[in-house]
């Protein structure tokens, strides 16, 4: 269909017909991703706002709520997620330097770290379920006072929504790995790698605030 560009020798195959140049396409892709991230931030901000509201209303509940959470596990997960962000950045660098090995290895490491995050989270959740700490209405833990159900409602919503983003991220990362295996992203068209990277860093970014707010502050 790219009838207008068919005979331009300097134009890579992968530039869509409606873009003037590959620079236009790449900058549009990245700008679009940043707008998507803006949307994600506002999506999460609703829950953070609820956190601020209820923390202000019930300060003591919030303090004792943080006691119920295991800050060492949370800290471990923070380190894991930061490491995954690091390997993701290196993966993008691998695509920039056109090194398939660096891209593949770093994508794989990122997926492994993401998996590790999920495993730690699984132990945290299952421990709470075991104690009977369920979201709000189903809350059945006897050993705490205050408005714990509402604290845990916020906890489960925030970490759960974050978890869903991690799982979606693992999906995207695996897709990237699969495509890299097939030899893609080595021709300068690595906008997908960059954009998944941006998404993954945002997931990290949200956790960076989530962790101290839920686990540490008391």
């Amino acid at each position, binding site marked *: 269909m790219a009838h207008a560009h068919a005979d331009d020798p300097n134009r890579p195959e992968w530039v869509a017909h409606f873009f003037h140049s590959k620079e236009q396409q790449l*900058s549009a892709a990245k700008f679009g991703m940043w707008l998507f991230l*803006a949307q994600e931030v506002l999506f999460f*901000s609703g829950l953070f*706002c609820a956190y*601020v509201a209820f923390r202000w*209303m019930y300060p003591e509940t919030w303090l004792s709520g943080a006691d119920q959470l295991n800050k060492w596990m949370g800290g471990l997960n923070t380190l894991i997620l*930061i490491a995954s*962000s690091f390997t993701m950045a290196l993966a993008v660098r691998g695509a920039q330097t056109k090194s398939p090995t660096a891209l593949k290895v770093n994508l794989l490491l990122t997926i492994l770290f993401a998996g590790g995050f999920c495993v730690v989270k699984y132990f945290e959740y299952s421990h709470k379920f075991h104690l009977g700490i369920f979201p709000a209405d189903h809350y059945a833990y006897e050993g705490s006072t205050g408005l714990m159900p509402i604290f845990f409602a916020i906890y489960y919503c925030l970490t759960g929504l974050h978890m869903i983003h991690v799982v979606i991220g693992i999906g995207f990362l695996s897709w990237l790995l699969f495509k890299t295996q097939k030899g893609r992203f080595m021709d300068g068209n690595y906008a997908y790698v960059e954009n998944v990277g941006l998404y993954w860093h945002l997931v990290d970014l949200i956790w960076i605030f989530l962790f101290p707010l839920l686990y*540490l*502050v008391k």
Partner: protein
Amino acid sequence: MNRNPVHHSAGAAHADGEHHEHIAPLSMYLGVFGALAVLTVVTVGVSELGIPQPYSLILAMIVATMKASLVVTFFMHLLWDDRLNSVVFLGTVIFVAIFFALTMTDLLSRDFLNPEMGNYVMLEEDKARWNECMETKTYDECRDKLPRGWSQANPDAVDGHHGAEGDHGAEGDHGKAEGDHGKADDHGTKSDH
């Protein structure tokens, strides 16, 4: 509106091809990762020190903001990227701030012009503390024992909650207190309260 030099809005500015690709050295990524790890350890460590309430929160948020800035600037390449993307990011932060600020304006000022308004829930502990205080002191002296947003002009309103506790017996032990539903006017929908 005279003729401007013809150029592509996005294309021509970057006509030198590889302009947008800034390949940062490996050492920089390692340095950022190291800084993030150190800051994580610091923030967990500080939480062990038992710094009193508002300061620990401020400290933790400062550290978190530092970490976030590192991720955004270096890992997400905003430092070298099109300035527009930074505008998007900072703009988002501003909108989140608007959202928080105006919502919290309401919550923080519910009793500001109208002392009969407060927040909906009073904890069992708060009630106990209030009642204990009221046994020996006057209403005005005990006002600071009330939870925030709950500066009832009429102390009976607090006592009044004792009567309702029986209704809540099944759930009473984790301190769910009586909601003051009357304050929430469910206009526009048919409230069944």
